[in-house]
């Protein structure tokens, strides 16, 4: 035998040393007899539960814990496996308060295999619980923050609509979800007429206000599932899943009249009226992909501008396109 091994055995056979180990152990140690009555209640246990040894010894160990599903689970696992590791059970303190106790326990058997008692190691988990709760809270806050940042990255802060990239991505998602046969998507590009004049006459803050109001008008005109975005500058985009060319034209026309008749207050006594030009296209009647539909809508938007603004263009009347 190695010297270390001899020393260790010597140590185990020294009752003083065993007692010292029992006393010095920071975990509370409780043992019971075969009937569950407490036979040993260490100093650390005293510190955890607050009971004097005289109040505990020879009483059933269940007085140390709150009855409940956790207790039942402890009993059941001890019965089935003969041991449990770090089960969290509400502990009962001498002053009536409760705390979280982490309990490891094992059934002790005598040499004939009969149950001789239970030994339990108990730790006060309150501090751990507090840290865990704090972490959980912090995590929730972080998730909120990430969601908020994500929202900010995907939305235009001024109009609270989707930004260009996210709007296109959402439209692609809608197309992918609709499948090959049911693919129907209306696309409208809308551009405010003479927006620069607002900026030049009233300043950019008023310009921002106008954009926000237009965003609200657009938002109001949509149904559930429609995708509205700020495409850039004073240009807006609407993707209407399920809409054909007629439907998206009606939508753009509705926005156009709505805006034409709306007074947007810019100062306390001045209001302006904005008009919008729009080009619309639809999948599959005009294009078979999103980029093609956007290109067509863009062309038609410029046709609307050229034709005198404040109108919706939905066809290429003056353009040639032989169906090849």
């Amino acid at each position: 035998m190695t010297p270390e091994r001899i020393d260790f055995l010597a140590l185990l056979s020294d009752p003083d040393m065993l007692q010292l180990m029992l006393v010095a152990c920071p975990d509370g140690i409780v043992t019971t007899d075969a009937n569950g009555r407490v036979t040993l209640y260490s100093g650390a246990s005293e510190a955890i539960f607050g009971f004097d040894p005289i109040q505990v010894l020879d009483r059933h160990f269940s007085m140390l814990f709150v009855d409940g599903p956790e207790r039942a689970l402890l009993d059941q696992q001890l019965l089935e496996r003969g041991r449990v590791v770090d089960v969290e059970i509400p502990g009962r303190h001498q002053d009536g308060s409760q705390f979280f106790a982490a309990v490891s326990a094992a059934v002790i058997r005598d040499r004939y295999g009969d149950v001789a008692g239970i030994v339990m190691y108990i730790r006060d988990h309150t501090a751990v619980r507090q840290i865990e709760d704090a972490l959980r809270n912090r995590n929730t806050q972080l998730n909120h923050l990430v969601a908020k940042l994500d929202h900010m990255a995907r939305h235009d802060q001024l109009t609270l609509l989707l930004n260009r990239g996210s709007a296109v991505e959402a439209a692609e998602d809608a197309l992918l979800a609709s499948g090959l046969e049911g693919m129907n998507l209306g696309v409208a590009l809308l551009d405010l007429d003479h927006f620069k004049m607002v900026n030049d006459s009233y300043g950019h803050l008023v310009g921002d206000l106008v954009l926000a109001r237009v965003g609200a008008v657009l938002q109001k005109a949509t149904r559930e599932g429609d995708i509205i975005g700020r495409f850039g500058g004073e240009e807006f985009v609407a993707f209407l899943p399920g809409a054909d060319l007629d439907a998206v034209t009606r939508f753009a026309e509705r926005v156009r009249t709505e805006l034409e008749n709306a007074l947007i207050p810019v100062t306390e006594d001045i209001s302006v009226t904005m008009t919008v030009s729009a080009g619309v296209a639809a999948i599959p009647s005009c294009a078979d992909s999103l980029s093609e539909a956007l290109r067509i809508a863009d062309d038609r938007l410029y046709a609307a501008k050229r034709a005198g603004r404040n109108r919706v263009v939905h066809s290429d009347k003056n353009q040639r396109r032989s169906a090849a």
Partner: protein
Amino acid sequence: MTTDTSSLSLDARNRLRTIVNRTTDLTPLKSVATRAIQLAEDERSAAMDLATVISSDQALTSKLLKLSNSAYYGYARRISNVREAVILLGMRTVRSVAISSGIIDAFKLPEFEASGFDQDLFWAHSVSVGIVAEIVARETRVARPEDAFTAGVLHDVGKLAMLLCEPESFVELIDLVNREDMSYREAESAVFGIGHEHVGARLAERWKFPEPLVATIRDHHPAKGIHTIETMSDVVGAANLACNREGLACGFDFTANEERKTVQALPPAVDSAINRVHGGMATLEEKARAFLLHVTARAPRWYAPHHGEPDTAAGDEPGAGAA
């Protein structure tokens, strides 16, 4: 509708028929390509059919997905199956890729080293013309851009048929171009007595291509030149001239030979379409190279570097120069 060959002599017409018959025997088109060609344009189910047909061909599927996820389309989202490609890139785009790659596959001819006619450069030219035709069609709106691409890629396919069926005559033709400084068209009519556009158009008919595509292949060399862009033939014809002007010639590397580049004036729409592309012609040429890379699954031989392009490909240019 049949190709009008009444202007040809009886002898030339017989030769034309023989070449077309032999070509369709020697280069059976994969069923995927045939079915892609014949898909109904306007029917709702066509998109579904196309996705199903392409998915049944693993090689084509993998080419399509590689191309879809490459810089060629510059698509941010990952496209992971044919169905997504059809939805996101569009059915016509996917269809034009299927047809083009089917034909490029069908014409894998034995190497033809000695002749000075380079098949890699043939496809380099054809795909470049397809890409330029696509943007010109988009600019002028006289044809669907995807159809113009397909027509551009296939506009010279008659040349390969002639090479395939009469290699000796073809060597003679190439010799005239390289040594006698003849133009390709002059040499062609001297040796074959028929133009490749007639062969190509006949072939396209055999393959049951839609009529506008057949007409475009037949008419891409209009006798009176191209002054305005009004038909798909004008689009492809002009794209062809634009590529030749840049030295991206068909089967020959004329990039270093100023005298052999086309100087014919082009309708302004062509250059405005090219200039609208960031990087202009160099970008389009790079796209053509990328297309061939993904469709043939190997790096194609390419023209000598020119117009300020970085000198990266200098090492792998074989002696394809015409000078």
